[in-house]
């Protein structure tokens, strides 16, 4: 064993839990031969013994004032406090649970009945003006309605399309000539269809067709009556 190796274990090799017998023998062999390590070992052993004497002296000293009565009082206070806080925590938990239940109830009621949500089918259908109305009459009624409509537009900008979900835009329903009344429209079923522009006049949707529009494909929701005739249409994008 070299001095360097001996130095690294010189504090430990007497400890049963650190060094084994073989290492201890090697270290002793080196110490008996090396004067420097012998002195170092001797000093360390002296220090260890001195520290042990100091530890024994400290052991025999009184271990301070007996604080047991004080600590017992603190123990009782703390346990009492814990019991109180536990009962408070219990009441708080009940309160939180009750408010959670109430809020769940409100949310589910809101979802089921909703805030008087207007049905797009019921609210939007506007039967087309009868084709029999004269142009003069139409112009007169338009003139009457125009200022009112402008005011309404200023007050609340019209939303041309309604976003149904994250991606889909839909228009309002337009009544088709096959519809007899709004009640008739509401009795129908909504069917999603894809159709060419050229097919729109065929179902009664008034549309001026040029070449591009006729070939364009539209996605639309049709309200189909019991007899299979389309009653209203809205366009989907």
């Amino acid at each position, binding site marked *: 064993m070299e001095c360097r190796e001996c130095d690294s274990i010189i504090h430990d090799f007497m400890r049963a839990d650190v060094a084994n017998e073989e290492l201890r023998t090697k270290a002793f062999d080196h110490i008996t031969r090396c004067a420097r390590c012998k002195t170092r070992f001797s000093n360390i052993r002296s220090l260890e013994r001195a520290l042990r*004497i100091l*530890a024994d002296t400290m052991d025999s*000293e009184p271990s301070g004032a007996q*604080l047991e009565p004080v600590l017992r009082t603190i123990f009782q206070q*703390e346990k009492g406090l814990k019991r109180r806080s536990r009962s408070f925590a219990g009441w708080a938990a009940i309160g939180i649970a009750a408010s959670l239940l109430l809020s769940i109830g409100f949310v589910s009621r809101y979802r089921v009945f909703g805030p008087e949500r207007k049905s797009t089918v019921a609210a939007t259908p506007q039967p087309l003006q009868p084709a029999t109305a004269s142009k003069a009459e139409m112009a007169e009624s338009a003139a009457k309605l125009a200022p009112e409509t402008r005011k309404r537009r200023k007050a609340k900008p019209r939303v041309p399309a309604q976003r149904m979900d994250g991606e889909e835009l839909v228009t309002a329903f337009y009544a088709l000539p096959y519809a007899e009344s709004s009640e008739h429209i509401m009795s129908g079923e909504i069917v999603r269809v894809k159709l060419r522009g050229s097919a729109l006049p065929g179902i009664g949707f008034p549309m001026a067709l040029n070449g591009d529009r006729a070939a364009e494909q539209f996605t639309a929701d049709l309200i189909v009556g019991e007899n299979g005739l389309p009653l209203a249409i809205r366009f989907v994008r």
Partner: protein
Amino acid sequence: MNLRSQLSDEALVDRMREGDEEAFALLYRRRQPDIYRFVLGMSNSRMATEDVTQEVFINLIRYAGRFDPTRGSVRSFLYGIARNCLLQHFERERPYVTYDGEIPENGSSALEKILQPDMNNPLAGLTTAELLNDLRQAVLTLPLKYREAVVLCDLQEMGYVEAAAVMRCPVGTVRSRLHRGRELLLQKLKPGGSVNHRAARKRACC
């Protein structure tokens, strides 16, 4: 014999959590001397030691729920609390440990004086006590990290593993800190070392 006195520390902590005051009192009586001596070994004031010891057991009352038997013994848990309380205490007080001890010196080291008292000398006991006081002062002048290693391993005779749990560091670190602490003690106690040097200087002044 009271049945509680046969219970392990861990069982006493369990009972304590359930509000058993006697279990706490028993644990206090069992562990208070160790904690007191550890704190006294680390600090230089009996008053501070009593304060810190009380703080340790108040913390035990409050945080007994945090004791996890898989991470160590109740003893280590208490030493860990004591160490934290001590660090907080040092932080609050920022103590400056000074040495004013006088060492009768005739060329030999203070250490040898401790170990080889002259039994024929009626003052030998007193001298030894003074020299032990010097050793204690030398321990107190060690930097904190070396001091706690020396106090735990040498004065409290704790194993490296347990000391590592208390100091929250690897076993190798405990070992190296202990070695460094002892080397510093040897330097302080040898003739011309800081402890002897100061004592000699004091004598020269008188």
